């Protein structure tokens, strides 16, 4: 096998470029290198101006999400060997504004997260002296999967609905809302309902399922959305059958 591999990297500098363009780099090919290692090599040895986000390089910080050959991937978990000897194309995540090179602006994503009230909502907090809120293993299992999200935004880059409609709340935000709705310690499902049961939230999803396919942590955002659609639809039936019921 060749001892180098070619990376075509999307470059964009807002001061000088009208649009992103590709630049090629040759890096040593090593079987134990991931795409992020190659990017770090380029930044250290070839072009210090290359800009990208990364932190933990072990699939937990969610910073290094990029498109690798058009597919949303964590670059710290994407091995060069899986693509060699062909060249590899690295681009910033789709559906987001590009700040510079491979860095995208995540303001919209963060704003949508906050709207979901992703924290434990209690009608009444019990005093610290009464101890913690206990939970059985079964109660933990009800939401644990959705709590594995690392906010890497790969699902937003994969979601064609978010690409078409930037108002769409998106997979991770809805899965996160569901993570708290399903938590036995939380009492905020009613507070989240008006945010979730909107055209721009769950009803915007057309169940393409790409979010679940690309998720590096095996969260199932598509499942969370369908689950909540059922909850909201049953609530709707209840409001039609018993209009006096109230909420």
């Amino acid at each position, binding site marked *: 096998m060749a001892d180098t591999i070619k990376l075509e990297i999307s470059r964009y500098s807002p001061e000088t470029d009208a649009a992103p363009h590709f630049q090629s780099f040759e890096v040593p090919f090593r079987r134990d290198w991931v795409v992020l290692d190659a990017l770090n090599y380029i930044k250290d040895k070839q072009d210090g101006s290359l800009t990208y986000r990364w932190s933990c390089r072990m699939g937990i910080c969610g910073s290094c999400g990029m498109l690798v050959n058009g597919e949303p991937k964590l670059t710290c978990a994407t091995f060069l060997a899986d693509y060699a000897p062909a060249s590899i194309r690295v681009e910033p995540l789709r559906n987001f504004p590009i700040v510079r090179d491979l860095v995208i602006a995540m303001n919209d994503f963060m704003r*949508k997260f906050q*709207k979901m009230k992703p924290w434990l909502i209690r009608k009444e907090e019990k005093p610290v002296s009464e101890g913690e809120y206990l939970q059985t293993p079964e109660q933990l299992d009800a939401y644990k999967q959705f709590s594995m999200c690392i906010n890497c935004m790969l699902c937003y880059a994969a979601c*064609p*609905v978010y690409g*078409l409609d930037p*108002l*769409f*709340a998106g997979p991770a935000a809805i899965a996160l809302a569901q993570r708290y709705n399903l938590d036995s310690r939380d009492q905020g499902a009613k507070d989240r309902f*008006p*945010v979730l*049961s*909107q*055209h*721009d*939230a769950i*009803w915007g999803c*057309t169940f393409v399922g790409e979010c679940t396919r690309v998720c590096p942590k095996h969260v199932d955002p598509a499942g969370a959305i369908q689950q909540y*659609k*059922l909850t*909201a*639809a049953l*609530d*709707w*039936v209840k409001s039609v059958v018993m209009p006096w019921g109230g909420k």
Partner: protein
Amino acid sequence: MDAQPTKLRIEPLLWLLFSAGGGVAAFFIPIHLFILGIAAPLGLTKATDYASATAFLAFPIVRFYLFVLCSLPLFHAAHRIRYTLYDGLQIKHLNEVIAACCYGGAVLGTVIAGYLLWSFQ
């Protein structure tokens, strides 16, 4: 995405029909395909000729079942085709026309199925 006052929404109804239609299609249509498309031609079942098959229609429950089997998957298809056209072909401005044609087609199919099953002697 901002919380708006809840108004009468049709999306939950359309999704319930879509979802129920998908469930019905996935569970029951394979059974019919197997019985009528595989088992009967291979001679694995008795009494699948036209006369004996239609004799089942004497039972109102069978007529109702067939009505549901025809109708709900039509709404499932309508919903899926609507979004495929809407997102796939990027014809957002024709949304109302597409929705009317898709769900209208499903309603029409339901009415025809209902009429045929009701009037069958």
